[in-house]
Structures are given as structure tokens and as C-alpha cells.
């Protein structure tokens, strides 16, 4: 069953990245998100993990949720039209005291059969096709060497359900959900993913209606009626297709005000005003803080007037993002540096990069 409503939500977000690319177990992220239990209400939780499928690192790892197991056949038929299924299995889950029932989760490791340059677009197409046309099946994640695990429940319970302590990844992001109205639906939980993007989001996008229609112009169909979906698609459109540098995503998604742009030097002014003129439909309005995971890193960002919390922290070679400081201190009591993100600011970390402590990136902070 598909959630017919878009769900405005509260939520907790957290992310851990090892800047050396060393994999760590899912235990840490579960502990971190669990601290923010009160920010969730048990109606959704989830995780994205990067680097967890080194064996199939070149293959698309599709996590597919089957509300209706009978749809498995339909989905696999579609997949097989474009991919060879190198391996598939049910995602192992364990029954816990809290979660006693769950839908069928499958994962498929897929090799694209067509031309290489189109493969990402093909994957997007397939995801759109399945998610919009096959009722009862839903592609949860579609990236390489990464996976999204999510469901109805508190995030820590979902983590335990999916036995995440058994996975090892260099980057983990997590989400605890506080929807204000909801029918529990496993597909509605965060993170939301497309290709290797994963997005967790705290907030509500007031510009949803236009962002959705803006994306429609570029062939993205937003069927899930979640804010997070538009964020994921916007990031995909801007970074993958329009080649926007991640560190400058804030210029588009949470752009500075015209009056700030007025005061900038000529070069910056030209950049920002061009961006705003062209990308007005991609501006995300309303309160949000998001963490976006991508191969090799993650970034955090808050809205243009900072209506939702987000902190970034560094300890040795670990980069943290979280809604609350406690969720970082829980797993790393001592920190080298802790900063609160400014309005419209993007702070990113990438494997192999030095700790930048977020300094060069405050391009559009208010």
C-alpha cells in the first residue's frame, strides 16, 4: 500500500563518516540516533550505509521493499530487461521484542546491460517506473556499494531488525521520524535514496509544490509525496546532471537573500544572482536540515534562515553531522571541533580529504 499523503515531519538526523574510508560497524550510528529517541515517534526510522558491499562494489545494489510479495515477479521482470541479476537475496532481518512483523525486503546486485554512459539515467528510469507503476513494490535504494534500511519503528529498533551491527561501512547516516500524521508505511521512512544518493531530512519543504513541478520539467516524477524525495531528486539533478559542486549546493537549495547578494563583490554577485535567476524553482523553502550521503562522503545543510538544528563535528579522522550535540558526544565524547551550521550553509566531508572543519564552505551563510 502506498502512502497517499505527504508527511510533514519533525525528526532526528545523524551521520558518521570515516575520512580515511575505514569501515565501521553500524553499532555507532544506532547508538547515536537512539540518543535522540525523543525526536522520533516510532513511525519511521532508517539508515543508509556506504561501503557495505565491497564484493559487489561495481554493481547496482537494489534494495526492494515488497508490501505485496506477489509483485516480486513483476519487479524482477523489469529489472531483467535492463540488467543481469548477479546475485539476489532476502535482506536478513531479526525479529525483535518491538518489531515482530515486517514486509519482504530483497536485495539485488545488478549489472547494467546497455551503454555505460546511460546507465545512471537508466537506473533512474527503472526506479521511477517501478515506484510509480508497480503498486506494492518499492525500490528503497539503487546505488553502488551502499544500501538503505528503513521501516516503521524507532530507528534503533529498525537498526536491530536489519542487524546493522553486522555491516561495516565507512559512512552511515540515520533518521528517526516524527511524522505529524501518518499511516505507518515502510516505504515512507527515511533515508530516501536514488542511485547512490541518500537523504535524511528533518523539516518541511514549503516549496514542495513548485520543486516537484520544477523536477517534472526534467523528467523526475515525484510519486511518493515526500519532501525528502524532491531533495534527493534535486541533488541528483544538480550534482549529477548539472555538475554543480556539492559545496555550492547551498547557493541553489538555500540561496542567500537578494540583499546579501547586492552587497557581494562583482564576481560573487554574478554567480549568486545567475544561480537564483535560473534555479528559482530549485530553491528549498521552509525549515529543514538534511544530511546527504554519497559515494565517498556526506554533507549537511540547513535552510536559508536556519529553522532546524544541525551540528558538524570532527574527531581525528571522523566527521559527524547530527541534529543534536548529544548524539555526537554519545559516540565520541571528546571532539576536535564542533560547529553549528549556519543558515544556508553546506558542510561536507569526503574520504581522503583533510579535515576542513567546514571553513571554506560557508559561501552563503546568513
Amino acid at each position, binding site marked *: 500500500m502506498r502512502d497517499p499523503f505527504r508527511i510533514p515531519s519533525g525528526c532526528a538526523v545523524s551521520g558518521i563518516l570515516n575520512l580515511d574510508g575505514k569501515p565501521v560497524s553500524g553499532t555507532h550510528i544506532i547508538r547515536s540516533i537512539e540518543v535522540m529517541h525523543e525526536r522520533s515517534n516510532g513511525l519511521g526510522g532508517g539508515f543508509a550505509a556506504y561501503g557495505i558491499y565491497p564484493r559487489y562494489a561495481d554493481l547496482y545494489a537494489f534494495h526492494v521493499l515488497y508490501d505485496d510479495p506477489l509483485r516480486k515477479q513483476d519487479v524482477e521482470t523489469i529489472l531483467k530487461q535492463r540488467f543481469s541479476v548477479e546475485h539476489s537475496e532476502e535482506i536478513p532481518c531479526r525479529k525483535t521484542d518491538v518489531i515482530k512483523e515486517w514486509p519482504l525486503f530483497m536485495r539485488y546486485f545488478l549489472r547494467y546491460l546497455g551503454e555505460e554512459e546511460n546507465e545512471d539515467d537508466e537506473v533512474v528510469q527503472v526506479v521511477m517506473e517501478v515506484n510509480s507503476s508497480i503498486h506494492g513494490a518499492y525500490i528503497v535504494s539503487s546505488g553502488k556499494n551502499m544500501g538503505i534500511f528503513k521501516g516503521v519503528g524507532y530507528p534503533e529498533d529498525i537498526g536491530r531488525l536489519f542487524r546493522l551491527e553486522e555491516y561495516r561501512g565507512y559512512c552511515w547516516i540515520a533518521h528517526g521520524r516524527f511524522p505529524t500524521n501518518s499511516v505507518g508505511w515502510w516505504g515512507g521512512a527515511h533515508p530516501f535514496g536514488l542511485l547512490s544518493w541518500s537523504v535524511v531530512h528533518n523539516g518541511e519543504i514549503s*516549496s514542495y509544490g513548485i520543486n516537484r513541478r520544477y523536477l517534472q520539467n526534467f523528467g523526475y516524477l515525484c510519486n511518493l509525496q515526500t519532501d525528502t524525495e524532491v531533495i534527493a531528486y534535486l541533488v541528483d539533478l544538480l550534482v549529477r546532471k548539472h555538475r554543480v559542486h556539492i559545496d555550492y549546493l547551498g547557493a541553489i537549495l538555500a540561496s542567500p537573500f537578494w540583499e546579501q547578494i547586492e552587497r557581494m563583490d562583482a564576481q*560573487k554577485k554574478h554567480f549568486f544572482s545567475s544561480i537564483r535567476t535560473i534555479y528559482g524553482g530549485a530553491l528549498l523553502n*521552509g525549515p529543514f536540515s538534511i544530511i546527504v550521503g554519497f559515494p565517498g562522503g556526506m554533507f549537511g545543510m540547513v535552510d536559508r534562515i536556519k529553522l532546524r538544528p544541525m551540528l558538524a563535528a570532527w574527531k581525528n579522522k571522523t566527521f559527524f553531522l547530527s541534529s543534536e550535540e548529544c548524539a555526537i558526544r554519545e559516540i565520541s565524547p571528546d571532539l576536535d571541533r564542533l560547529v553549528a551550521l549556519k543558515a544556508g550553509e553546506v558542510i561536507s566531508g569526503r574520504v581522503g580529504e583533510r579535515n576542513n572543519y567546514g571553513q571554506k564552505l560557508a559561501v552563503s551563510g546568513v
Partner: protein
Amino acid sequence: MAKSLLFPEFKIDRDKERCISCQVCVRQCANDVHEGSDNEDTVLSQEENCVGCQRCVNLCPTNALTVHKREGGFRPNGNWSEQHLRGIYKQAESGGILLTGMGCDRSYPIYWDHLLLNASQVTNPSIDPLREPIELTSYLGRKEEKLDIDWSGEFPLVQTRLAPQLELKVPVVFSAMSYGSISYNAFRSLAEAAREVGTFCNSGEGGLHPDFYPYGDNIVVQVASGRFGVHRDYLRVAAAVEIKIGQGAKPGIGGHLPGEKVTKEISRTRKIPEESDAISPAPHHDIYSIEDLERLVFAIKEAINYKKPVAVKIAAVHNVAAIASGVVRAGADIVTIDGIRGGTGAAPQVIRDNVGIPIELALAQVDERLRSEGIRHHSSLLIAGGIRSSADVIKAIALGADAVYVGTAALVGLGCHLCQKCYTGKCNWGIATQDPVLTKRLNPNIGKRRLVNLIRAWSFEIKEMLGGMGVNAIESLRGNREHLRAVGLSKEECAVLGVKAAGEGW
């Protein structure tokens, strides 16, 4: 001549206790309704000529006058309304087309009044415009699909050259009203106000008087079927050029400025002989197809070195979405759509009241059509035709307009009382007239101030409403129909508007 069957439309009540026979009403009525008696002790009124413009009422220093619709003249009849009967009498007497001015006054549904806006509660904080910036700045013009940016340097360098844009501080533009249809002072009021508030006014098809060249940066000039006043400097001095194909008040027909209004200054502006009728043909005789339009669009772009956006204005007719799509593909940077309630200085009443469709439906359809074709960003959408308040503006934006044109609202701001007699040239408010006795009644300093106030007031209200929705930039509302809900509309109407019914959540 046989006796007319018509009788006065208005009744004038003069409170004898209050009237001081000061003759202000006598001096102010261009229709010679009031007359002082010989001894100047009393003032008499002859109602036959009264158009109900309320000028005398407004200026009467003792409030001795009331002008109201004369009741009970016609026998009530659900089918044969007063309007129909009057029309028949007039035509039986004159044998001519009934003329009228301003926009359609029939009671067709006004969809603005069936659309409701959203506001934030709990999950999303509303924004207080007194404390936080809320942005109304908008750019009209073709938008590139994406920007090519060189990320290699210290700071990213935008490589793409943006198409020319019109920067609007408020998404409200004064619509096309020619010098000729309105007075010099009225046009000056519009031009000065546009400059003051950071928006534009439109020359209409009346050319541009040299006095207004200094305002060129805030003027959109029109190229219409009559090509009046169109020449190189006219195109180059303006901020944008608009090709007028059609007008909401009279889709499918041309225009006519009677010779008596073609004064020396208007003749100079329009480049036509003094006192000659200025007739705009129904079609452009060089545009019989969409390909022809494309040629004109690019001819103009060539003339202005591609430095300014070119707009194309069409009336909202049944197939407007497809036509607009064609117009976009013909190279228009801005598509202007004018709905059935759009105003005019003169139009046959039967056309004004019966041809075209409401702008709300046209806008919704055009915006959706362009998006579904993936060409919405190729053109901005400017809509016109019956925008009455900031609420209408914001609803239009939410439906998908980039900005709105206001004509009637601006004129009302200048003092128009909608008597619909613009075509007579005897506008007592000094707006739609060239009579020097009347034109000076509109002091452009006052006119400018009133328009600036009006637009400021609207922009405050728009900011309040945006803030209430938790949106601090107008582009986040543009086309964001999630913030609209319909009341009292059928499923079909909701579908055409692309708006959910009130009560439906997200």
C-alpha cells in the same frame, strides 16, 4: 427625431439642506449634468447624461450629493435583464455596435474567489515579515535549463550567458494602456510609479512620447497590429518589447482610437496625422501563422541586439495552452496571457462580455502544459485580466504566473470609478481622456504616490501571506499549487486548475 425609449441610468439626490450652491459639481461634470440657476442660488441636475462616475459626489464639499443606480425603471424580468433591454433600445435607436469600456462586468465565476491559501502551523514556522526578509524579487525572461559553471578556480565562474531578464521588485506590472487611451498624466503616473517601486509599465500600442524615454528602463513597449509609434528608438529605449496579438477584453478584434483623440502630442507619439483615426487591424497582417510570429519575434530581437526580452501577448481563448506552447517555441521570452476580465478603453460590449475565458483557468492550463512539455523555463508567464488585490496576485503566482499585469486596479488607484465610459473621452477623473480641461484633473504627482502606495501595500500583504506559509522567497510559491485549495468548485474545475479541494491534505 423620435423620442428615445431610454431613461436615465442614475438618480441624483441633492440634499437641499446641505447644498450651498457652490457650483463645484457644475464645474466638475464633463457631461453637463449639473447646472447652476441664473441667480446662482440653486443648482439643478439633469440625470439623462449622468454616467455614475461619482466625480461630483467626491468633490461636493458638503456631501450634499448622492448618485445611485436608478431603481425600478424596467419591469423585473429574470430573462430580459435591464442590460439586455437597454442594449436593444440603444441599438434600435442607433443601429450600431454597443460600445463599452473597462473589463467584462458579467457575473461569471471568479476563480480567485474560489481559491484559498495555506498557512503554516506547528510543523513549519511561519515567518514574520517585519523581522525576516521575505523576497518578492522576480526575473522575467527565458531561463537557461542549466548553468555551465567553471568550478576549477578559487570561486566558481558562471560560463553561461543568461538571456536578458526583467528584474521586478514586486511581481506586479502595469499593463498595456496607451497614451491616447489614457491621458499623458495617467501614463506619467504609471511610469513614475513603476520606476519608484521597481517594476514596469507598458506603453500599449500608442507609441512612447519622448517625455517618457527617460523612463525607458521601466517601460515595456508594445508592437501591435497597427504598429503605431514603432521605430528603432522606441524598441531600443524600452526594457522589453511586447508583441500584442490579442487582448482579453476583445479577443480577435482590433482597436480604434477616434480621430478627435489624436491630438498633436498623440500624433507625434504614434506617428500618424493629427485627428486621423488610429485603427489597429484585428490580426497583424504579417502574422498569419506561428511561423510568421517567430519571424517577427526574431526580427525584433535582431533590432534590439538580443539585449532585451521579447514578450508575446495573447488573449485567453479556448485553446490557449497549445497556442502558448507555440508562442514559447516561437521564441517569446515572456508570454502574456490576458483573460476575459481584462480591461480596455473601448470594445464592443458583445465581444467583451462573451469572448474568451477566465485567466485563472488559462493560466493553470498554460503553466501545466509548458511544464509537461519541459519548456516552462523557456518563457516567463505574465498574466492579466481582473487582478483586484494582493490575494489575486499571490494566487496567480501560486497557480504558476511569474508576475501579473494590473490595469484596471491601477486605474482605480488613480481614481477610476469604473463608469465604463472610457470610449467617450469624457473621463471626469482625467484618466481616459485627452481633453485638456479633464486631463489636468489627474496630478501625476498624486497619481504616482497613489500607485506607489498601492503596490507597496500589496507587497506588504503578499509578504504577510508568504510569511504565513513559511515561504520567504516568491519563487518558492511560484507554481506551488500545494498552497492553494479550491472551495465550491466542481471536480472538473479543480482538475483544470490543478488544485486540490479544500480539506484535502498533502
